[in-house]
Every structure is written in structure tokens, then in C-alpha cells.
């Protein structure tokens, strides 16, 4: 894996009330190469390399599933929502077209 690819940050609100709908903000470092760009020095096409599948699991259940194209920005950032009705792990999984899988789990702990 190239340097600096697949570093993840997931942000949840500091305080979560039970049953509250909370934003899940997830950032991952990835070049999201479109396969349409040329290397300015060599003139060669930079091969496509992008995340095309994102899944969010809450307590083992798939709550959100996203299909991404090449038009999602480099170092993708997304916000999705989840109803925090239980204390359970939240796992986000990114897959890119080369088959790499990146994932991170955080705990949702309603007060």
C-alpha cells in the first residue's frame, strides 16, 4: 500500500443520547485516481485507483452502503447518519478497485 493511503478518522458527537440520530463523519486518505490523468513528466496515464464501495455496520448490521465513482474527491470524506439506539460497535469498511480493504471500528456509547 502506498505511503499515507488508508489512514482513517471517524468522528462521532462527544455526547450521544440514546435513540438520537447522530452524524458519522468518516475521512480516509486515498488518491482516488480516475485513470484519466496523465503524469505530467512522463506523459503516461496514471492508472485508475479509487474506492468504489463503502459500508457502515452498526452492531453487525449493515446500515449504509455507498457506491462511489471516480468523481469522489481524493482523500474522501463522507457524512452519513445512524440512529444510536444501542451501545454497539460502528464499523466503516472501504474497498478500492485493487481489492484493498480499509476498515475502522469505533464504539457508540449512548449516555
Amino acid at each position, binding site marked *: 500500500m502506498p505511503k499515507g493511503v488508508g489512514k482513517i478518522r471517524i468522528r462521532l458527537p462527544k455526547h450521544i443520547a440514546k435513540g*438520537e440520530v447522530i452524524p458519522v463523519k468518516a475521512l480516509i486518505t486515498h488518491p482516488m485516481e480516475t485513470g*484519466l490523468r496523465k503524469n505530467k513528466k512522463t506523459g503516461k496515464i496514471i492508472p485508475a485507483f479509487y474506492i468504489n464501495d463503502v459500508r457502515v455496520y452498526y452492531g453487525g448490521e449493515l446500515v449504509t452502503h455507498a457506491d462511489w465513482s471516480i*468523481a469522489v*474527491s481524493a482523500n*474522501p*470524506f*463522507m457524512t*452519513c*447518519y445512524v*440512529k444510536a439506539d444501542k451501545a454497539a460497535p460502528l464499523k466503516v469498511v472501504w474497498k478500492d478497485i485493487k481489492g484493498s480493504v480499509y476498515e475502522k471500528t469505533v464504539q457508540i456509547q449512548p449516555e
Partner: protein
Amino acid sequence: MKEMQTQPNAVSRREFLKKAGFASVAVMAVSTVSSMFSTGGRSPLSWPGAQEAAAAGRDVREVLRANFGDRTIQPSHVMLKTPIIAENGAVVPVAIDSDLPMEAGNYVKKIYIFVDQNADPFIASTDLTPASGRAAYALRIKMRKTSLVRAIVETNKGVLYGDTKTVKVTIGGCGG
């Protein structure tokens, strides 16, 4: 975007949606909305901008037809937030929000994002479940040039709602 993300409780959200014009759109829907949206519940192809759609690459009309056939899209219940001018087309933040219910048996199952003038107008789609709690999604996207951005949401019953915004992508001043 800030207020809806930092205070995601029901009350502030309703206020937000009201502020964002949901209430007024609902009231005006019958009478004047056709002047704002040429859709007015017609086929996706009559959405603003569809006629001048992409010169190069896939035509947004074909993409919309492939996804939605001839189903109508209601210009309500969805709020697409974008910058008016994107400082850089490589990173344009878009946020879609909706006041549609997210309950078992009655929920938004999918949110789509399209950019007419991109070589491939399909940007992303997101499948949601009632456990999402809110039919909303935000993403940073690439835009080749100034274009209409479309957010379309589909309920589990197959009903479509949408919103559009034009994002002006910076024309660089300097450099050769």
C-alpha cells in the same frame, strides 16, 4: 451544514428544514413551483439543464433514464446544499438532507448524486436503511466544470424526490 450536523436533534432539524425552504416549497408546490423547477413532477429529462446536457462523455439524460425510467421526480422534501462557487473543482462539498420518514416499511432507500457536465454524470449512490435514522448524506466530489448538481432520493416504495443546484467551478485567473 454546520447547524444540521452539530445539532442533529429533531427540533433543530425541523427548524433547519423550514429555514431551508421546505415549508414554502410545499405550499407553493401546486401554483408556482413549475417556474422554479420545470419538473413539477414530470420526467427527469425535463429537469432544468437536461436539454443542454453533457457535450462530451455520457449524456446525463441517458443516465437518468437508465436509473429512473420515466418515473416522475417531486421537487420537494430534499435539500441539496452546495457552495455557489467551488474554489476548486477537485473538491466540492455537497450535502443532501431530507425530512422524509425513516421508519420500518416507510423510508428512503437510496440517495443519488449526479453532475451533468462530468464525463460520467453518476457520482455516487448510497443505500440507506431505517436504522440510518435520517435520509441524509454528505460527500466531497469532483466537478470538471460549472454544472448542475442533482440529488435524487428514492423511497422504499419507489417514489422519487429531488433537488438541484448549480455550482460554478472556478475559472483560474493565473497561469498558462
